């Protein structure tokens, strides 16, 4: 860990300014990912701006019947919120499928969206990695890639986004709200929040320097059967090989997003028209153009079969 300085911000704009004013500064919320990465010197911030005192820890109804989730609401509080469990079950289920109880108690909504890949080559500072060291190459390509991306990847990076929560947010069409150091705010659709790696895999969000996530809004409830299924070798405390977030309606229509397959939660709205025709049709469109590695080609049939499980459960519900 490199030595760093530390301050506690008092309000969101103050926090944004503090980070923007110093190159190499970062926000610190729950710290469940950042601190681990600092110990490994994968992250080497020179200054940390702790945001735990700036509020943003409420879940409130919005004017149009949705919910606004403060950036610092913990994963535990979000997953157990009565309204979330009732109206946005896919989100609640996605969150409790991730990490452990202890981590969810610390991890925040904004932090979850910003967590970095679990690609093992990203985690070993002796190995080339375009995310860690732009231009050094991707050692995962041609290496051990069982966990890694099958679609939306590039010749520069095949990392996956490890979040379960983000997959739930994607299927619900959530919006990420931010504030910039100049006090201006913007709303970013979750679909646009995480870019694909392209030739700049070190850029993992569309946030600008100092821009702070203040919350996430959910549109008004869409009803339907909510399902989150996470496939992994062990029963708990593991990242997804493939996960499926689905909302399925009585008439067979619905939405689906995949985790564990791409640099971002993977959803193709056009594929969802095929939902009533079954998993094969949907998965075919959802994963068209996939470029798997030999180690992870199984994710394509696995995604289809896991989606089939979701659709069958939706029918039975």
């Amino acid at each position: 860990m490199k030595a760093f300085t530390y301050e506690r911000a008092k309000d969101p704009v103050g926090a944004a300014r503090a980070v923007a004013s110093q190159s190499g500064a970062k926000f610190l919320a729950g710290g469940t990912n950042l601190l681990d990465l600092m110990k490994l010197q994968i992250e080497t911030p020179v200054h940390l701006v702790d945001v735990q005192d700036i509020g943003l820890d409420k879940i409130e109804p919005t004017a149009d019947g949705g919910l606004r989730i403060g950036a610092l609401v913990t994963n535990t509080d979000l997953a157990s919120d009565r309204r979330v469990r009732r109206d946005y079950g896919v989100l609640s289920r996605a969150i409790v499928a991730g990490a452990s109880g202890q981590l969810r108690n610390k991890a925040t909504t904004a932090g979850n969206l910003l967590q970095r890949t679990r690609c093992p080559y990203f985690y070993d500072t002796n190995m080339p990695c375009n995310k860690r060291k732009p231009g050094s190459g991707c050692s995962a390509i041609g290496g051990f890639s069982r966990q890694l991306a099958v679609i939306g990847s590039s010749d520069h990076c095949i990392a996956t986004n490890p979040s379960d929560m983000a997959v739930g947010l994607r299927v619900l069409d959530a919006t990420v709200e931010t504030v910039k150091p100049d006090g201006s705010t913007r709303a970013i659709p979750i679909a646009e929040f995480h870019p694909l790696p392209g030739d700049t895999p070190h850029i993992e969000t569309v946030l600008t320097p100092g821009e702070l996530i203040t919350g996430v809004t959910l549109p008004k409830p869409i009803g339907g059967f909510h399902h989150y299924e996470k496939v992994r070798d062990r029963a708990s405390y593991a990242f997804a090989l493939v996960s499926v977030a689905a909302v399925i309606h009585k008439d067979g229509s619905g939405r689906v997003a995949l985790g564990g397959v791409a640099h971002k939660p993977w959803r193709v709205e056009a594929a969802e028209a095929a939902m009533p025709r079954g998993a094969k049709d949907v998965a075919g469109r959802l994963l068209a153009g996939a470029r798997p590695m030999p180690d992870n080609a199984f994710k394509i049939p696995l995604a289809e079969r896991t989606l089939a499980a979701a659709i069958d459960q939706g029918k039975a519900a």
Partner: protein
Amino acid sequence: MKFDTPAGQNPIDRAKVVGCAHDRIDGPFKTTGQAPYAYEHHRHVGNPAYGYVVGSAIAKGRIRSIKLDAAKVAPGVLAIVAATDTGKLGKGDFNTVKLFGGPEIDHYHQAIAVVVAETFEQARAAAALVRVDYDRGQGRFDLDEALKTAPLTGGDSNQGGAPKADRTGSFEEAFARAPVTLDALYSTPDHSHAMMEPHASIAAWNGDQLTLWTSSQMINWGRSDLAKTLGIPKEKIRFLSPFIGGGFGGKLFLRTDAVLAALGAKAAGRPVKLALPRPFVANNTTHRPATRQRIRIGAERDGTITAIAHESGSGDQPNGEPETAVNQTKLLYAGANRLTAMRLAVLDLPEGNAMRAPGEAPGLMALEIAMDEMAEKLGMDPVDFRVRNDTQVDPEKPARRFSERQLIRCLREGADRFGWSQRKARPGQVRDGRWLIGMGMAAAFRNHINFPSGARVRLSGDGRVMVETDMTDIGTGSYTIIAQTAAEMMGVPIEAVTVKLGSSDFPVAAGSGGQFGAANSTAGVYAACVKLREEVAGRLGFNSTDAVFEAGKVRSGNRSAPLAQAAAGGDLVAEDKIEFGDLGKTHQLSTFGSHFVEVGVDAYTGVTRVRRMLAVCAAGRIINPKSARSQVIGAMTMGVGSALMEELAVDKRFGFFVNHDLAGYEVPVHADIPHQDVVFLDEADDKANPMKAKGVGELGLCGVGAAVANAIYNATGVRVRDYPITLEKHLARLPTLA
């Protein structure tokens, strides 16, 4: 005490303390944080500096230069010892590869420098400033490629030995004649010990005297090899390891934490504490080597095996040893015509070495699938097929009988208790919602190893008994079973016994490994107690042969005296060790069991989840059924890991284990282990030792992987012979979704 004739009646047979379930006597210390682990001896070392290891960034090659300038001036740095200034270090007898690399690099994350600083964080930050230039060399990292030209090799002398190829009868002829045959290939991956506590040491020098607090399964081995590595007399080292957070074989031998702490402390002129970062457990220390196994079995139509061959290939560093995966096949089943052989390839991956049940663990993962496949070909029940081929003698040397062998009882009793008769012989027949349900079983086998073991016992005037031995407790329960043994022998309650372990100040004991710890170390305590009883009897004027030690008293005929009275004039101290004659050669000492497993395989995703497990064990006297059960359920859990998820992923380009943390190297969590039962059969093996006990901790692992694999096959009808059985290995062949 030399043990050279079968044990007769002795005080242990009273079984008032031994054989009864006892809580761990060290439990309260552990649950209240008072048991100091290697990194925690604050009471003894007031002002330690912190060491941090620098590991090689390449797997094979040579260090061109090491630049320390930036690290040396980093905040808090006290000293740096680098490969460039440790030319004359020795190598321990038990180490295949030197623990401090450079200029030649033998494997990834081999230690090449240690940075010592005032705080842990400063040492870690400065270690990252050490700049190393390498000449990257060509390494051998592909086991399958290397095995194509690998020579046959002899066995591992630690594990009973095996000549280059063992033949009995004529395997090839018998196999060619057999009406029913199997010829199949199996593979097991590299495994990491992944114990909770990583390797750690605190070193403190006082002149030329070194005290080392560490985490070691084998005090005397570690002390000797540290002396050899540092080039100092063994007597100059105190080697202490009172509490250990798991080892599984990864702490049998001296590791680099001890060497770096000692060198760092010398250079800094301060005590130094050093723990290996988690990624170093995979690539800096040892691991269980991967195997490629071929098994051929030929049988008559009635199920009688006439020919059996087991060949295994593995890899290791130059001058390393094979994974002896053919061990059990020499002894487990009858068959007149036999062949076992091993090949050893040279690899430049980290050193392969012992991990829990070395040999048998991966060997049974293959053999017990083969037996399941053979049973199916014969149209026999897998339990019946194994019973049919039981043997009470060593099949290679029929004059040698097993001292005790209750395999058939283990199989039958396990089948009854588990409800095996409910199993459908045809696979893929049972559904529970989306789950395909299957049952599988395997035989368990692990040799028992005799090991000399010493102890010192002391009776004091207050009637308390103290045992001192360098035996270790790696979480297994050694403290408790040693207390039970001394209590039984001296006729005192267990609360009257104090046990001190894990110090080179104490007599050399068996140590913890190869499931040889419990039986041998308690036999050593038995020997010392026999001597102490003689002294007590003499002091109290009894004839030692008929004196009865019971309830704090010594009694003979009508006369009785308090035990404490013998020490009224001063402590009585006796020291002895157990040594072994030829009973282990004239007889085969082994442990047996059966494992039964029920799994569900998700018809959609191919994910396997274990639903319930049963182990039935016959392993001599069970000294403490409670801690033995804990050992076996822990081992069964490890078996589930090896069946379903554990694999060190090899990067054949860079030559290292990629998934080198506990997020990437998955071991089972609680949610993976819903229900386990363990049954111990009554057994007292009088040819093993005076305790009539054998090992049991590793038996609990042996065969579990195959039982899971066989259950998966029974659920799905898809046979997977390549561990771990992750979903992609059968997904495409699963029954079509309804």
